[in-house]
């Protein structure tokens, strides 16, 4: 059973947005028991999609005394690379198959302090290495929109959990596309915050210099609600910024009148057919009072090289701790993708090669930053397709070692420079029920601008499958 375009049903509270459910709870139009019952049912019905690796059967009991908090005791799914105290955390790798963290990540701590309840841990590409969930040691997740297709990744489980209405929102993490790309493939909203906005403490590290936790949700508003609760400075993560968290929910309806938007990558030949499909959608921004025009940016193909080298280097270092001394399932349990990345990263950091590869990559990374600086001197926002095309078929990664890098190519420039980005659904193929996503990028720390554009677009178009839930 695949999920049709319209998710919202009046009688199924699991298909409501977080914003609506919260209101309904306050107005006593619904109870948490009813919500959890509906969610449990949805999870049971989508078991074949392999969305969850672990579930908390006591979730409903934890809603106690949380109803007055911002997240009101509502069920949230969390990607399985966030350490959750007492709840198994595997990063989808056999190496951590038995790992029960004795501590809680900062993001999940905040989530729960704000009244959210973690109902389960979602599947991902092992160690978040990939854009399909196919590298997971516990099997791939299927795309709820069309079961013949992949959900994207690495936060594929979280995006699928939202698309299948098995939770009211989810937490993902992005290193280069891992929130936005699966959100695009599953037709949901994914918000990748500025690097340093959300704490990485307790998140199984992939590439430390770009890892960014963030929400995956049904609507831009829902994403903003969750963002406000999980963002902020963390004394346990030196790379978080000591900045106040913007009240995004108060910015939502400010519109985009007179904003200047640059359209990225529409001149790249292999993307012509996809851009053609969203031509009309891009015109929506003009109707809303913004100016949009194509811009010339540094070729994203270079970002693949930079990202591949930097990320592999950091991966080879971050995975060095799983040597088998303390996690009894040691390095023999690493999957093929992790092994490839460790080998490549070790090579690019080796004496005599580090200058040629790692340091050169870091220099090109700086060029990308300069390129964005000059673009943002002229434009308030930049938009592009999130992914070069629709979701790929199940099995598509086979023999494709660079699968993820190609699918994430349009997101890598903003990821390696730490910029915030937002995916909103912007097109649906009525035959396959698969989506294209629009990637909206803002300058550092300007998530407010990005969500204003995303929300305005969502309201003005018909592509969000929950938008008619009022």
């Amino acid at each position, binding site marked *: 059973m695949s999920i049709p375009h319209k998710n919202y049903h009046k009688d199924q509270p699991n298909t409501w947005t977080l914003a609506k459910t919260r209101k309904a709870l306050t107005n006593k139009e619904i109870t948490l028991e009813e919500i959890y019952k509906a969610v449990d049912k949805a999870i049971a019905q989508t078991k074949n999609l392999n969305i969850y690796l672990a579930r908390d059967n006591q979730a409903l009991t934890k809603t106690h005394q949380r109803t007055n908090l911002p997240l009101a005791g509502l069920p949230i799914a969390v990607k399985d690379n966030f350490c959750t105290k007492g709840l198994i955390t595997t*990063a989808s790798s056999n190496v951590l198959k038995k790992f029960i*963290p004795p*501590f809680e990540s900062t993001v999940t701590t905040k989530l729960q302090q704000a009244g959210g309840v973690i109902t389960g841990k979602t599947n991902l590409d092992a160690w978040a290495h990939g854009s399909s969930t196919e590298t997971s040691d516990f099997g791939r997740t299927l795309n709820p929109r069309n079961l013949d297709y992949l959900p994207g990744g690495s936060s594929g489980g979280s995006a699928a959990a939202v698309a299948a209405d098995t939770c009211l929102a989810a937490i993902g993490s992005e290193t280069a596309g891992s929130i936005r790309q699966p959100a695009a493939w599953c037709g949901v909203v994914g918000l990748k915050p500025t690097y340093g906005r959300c704490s990485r403490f307790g998140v199984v590290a992939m590439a430390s210099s770009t890892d960014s936790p963030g929400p995956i949700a049904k609507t831009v508003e829902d994403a903003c609600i969750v963002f406000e609760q999980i963002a902020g400075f963390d004394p346990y993560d030196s790379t978080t910024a000591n900045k106040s968290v913007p009240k995004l929910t108060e910015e939502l309806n400010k519109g985009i009148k007179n904003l200047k938007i640059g359209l990225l990558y529409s001149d790249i030949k292999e993307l012509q057919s996809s851009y053609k499909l969203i031509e009309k959608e891009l015109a929506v921004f003009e109707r809303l009072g913004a100016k949009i025009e194509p811009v010339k940016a540094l070729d994203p193909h270079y970002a693949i090289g930079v990202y591949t080298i930097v990320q592999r280097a950091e991966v080879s270092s971050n995975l060095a701790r799983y040597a088998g*001394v303390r996690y009894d399932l040691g390095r023999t349990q690493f999957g093929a993708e992790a092994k490839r990345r460790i080998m490549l990263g070790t090579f690019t950091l080796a004496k005599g090669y580090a200058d040629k590869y790692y340091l050169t990559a870091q220099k090109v990374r700086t060029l990308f930053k300069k390129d964005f600086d000059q673009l943002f001197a002229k434009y308030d926002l930049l938009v592009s397709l999130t992914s070069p095309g629709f979701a790929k078929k199940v099995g598509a990664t086979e023999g494709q070692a660079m699968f993820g890098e190609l699918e994430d190519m349009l997101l890598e420039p903003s990821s390696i420079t730490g910029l915030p980005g937002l995916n909103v659904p912007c097109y649906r193929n009525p035959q396959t029920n698969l989506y294209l996503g629009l990637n909206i990028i803002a300058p550092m720390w300007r998530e407010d601008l990005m969500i204003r554009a995303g929300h305005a677009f969502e309201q003005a178009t018909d592509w969000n499958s929950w938008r008619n839930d009022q």
Partner: protein
Amino acid sequence: MITTTKNSKYELVCGLEVHAELKTASKMFCGCVNNPFGAPKPNVYTCPVCLGMPGGLPVINKKAVEWTIQLGLALHCQINLFSHFDRKHYFYPDLPKGYQISQYDQPFCYGGYIDTSEGRVKITRIHLEEDTAKLLHEIVDEQKISLIDFNRSGVPLVEIVTEPNIKSAKQASEYGKTLRQLIRYLEIGDCNMEQGGMRLEANVSLRPVGSNHLPSYKVEIKNINSFRFLEQAIVFEVERQTTLLNDNKIPTQETRGFDAVKNITFSQRSKESAEDYRYFPDPDLPPLVFNDSQIEMWRNELPKLPKQVVEHWQTKFDISVSLGQQLIKTKTQSSWLDQVFELAQKAKISPAKLANAFINKKLPLDSAILPQTIIDQFSKNNQTTAIEEDQLTQLITDLLNKHSSELARYKAGETKLLGFFIGQIKRQVPPSTNISQINQELLKQLDRKT
């Protein structure tokens, strides 16, 4: 001199790498207690960060950075205004993350020196890193097993590296002792060598006398836990390498351990080519940027250093250099001693005698004691004990009554009889009785009897 024998064709080329643990309250990158030797049992001072758990992230201990820079300033180093931490990768069971957070190309301090009696030893660099856990090899149920104690994992560790310009074994150990004294003096480390709070590694090679080139090989000696062993190890190596070179053999580039029982070094592993630690800047830790005024502030916070203090004591209080050096321990103790000596001088007590009493007469050397209390105690120890006033008065009255003729002669002007009276009283009181007290009381009564 015990190094290169006078007739040798070769001269020593030696550099030292010294590791010292800093005694900050918490560890280098987490909030765990930094007290591995005082821990009640293994693995109590641990957390996800120093255990290297998934998602653990380091946060810099600012105190440790400050102390490292102050040590650098005390050793005449330059300070890098831009610095960062790097990951140094290698596999060992006591290294939970598979890498050590250290500093590679931008250490906090560079280019300092320590002056020794055999000349200046140049310091190349001082950097800050984290200590490893501790391996315990034990036999349990007749099985050889290795256990890991993570109490030490993540303890701040400074590494002080010299240029290869140490010329003798004696100079190496003098350098090390001076360095240890300074670290203890600044109260940033205990440098307990037996517990591994300070560890010495010597790089030893030989070159023909008169040559300016570095030798083509280098022998690293590890596991040296005393300055005596350091000297012995270098002397042994010089002899071993001399024999090889005389046979036209180049000593192998290797790491050697020191066997303190047999008093020899032994090969541990060959180090034909440099190891590849795949250093790169730790992406979990932003770079550290300092400005000149910050460095100046730290420089101004530095106390007077041991050498200056000893000189100051000599000029101001006439305390000999050797005595002064014995009294140098920590900066707190030195400033306390300053106060004690000042007070002594005011009270007309010789500071030098006082200094001597600290070393030789068990006068308590404890900065927790009020300086005035120390002065009082010193005076008491050195002054005669007082006698009960009533008792003394009675003694004198009896004496004068008994010797009425002498009293009359005294009254007549024979004042030298005072000595006779005193002598008589002294026979009747304990030998330590305060003479001036007797004197005073005696004169009082003699006058009254006029």
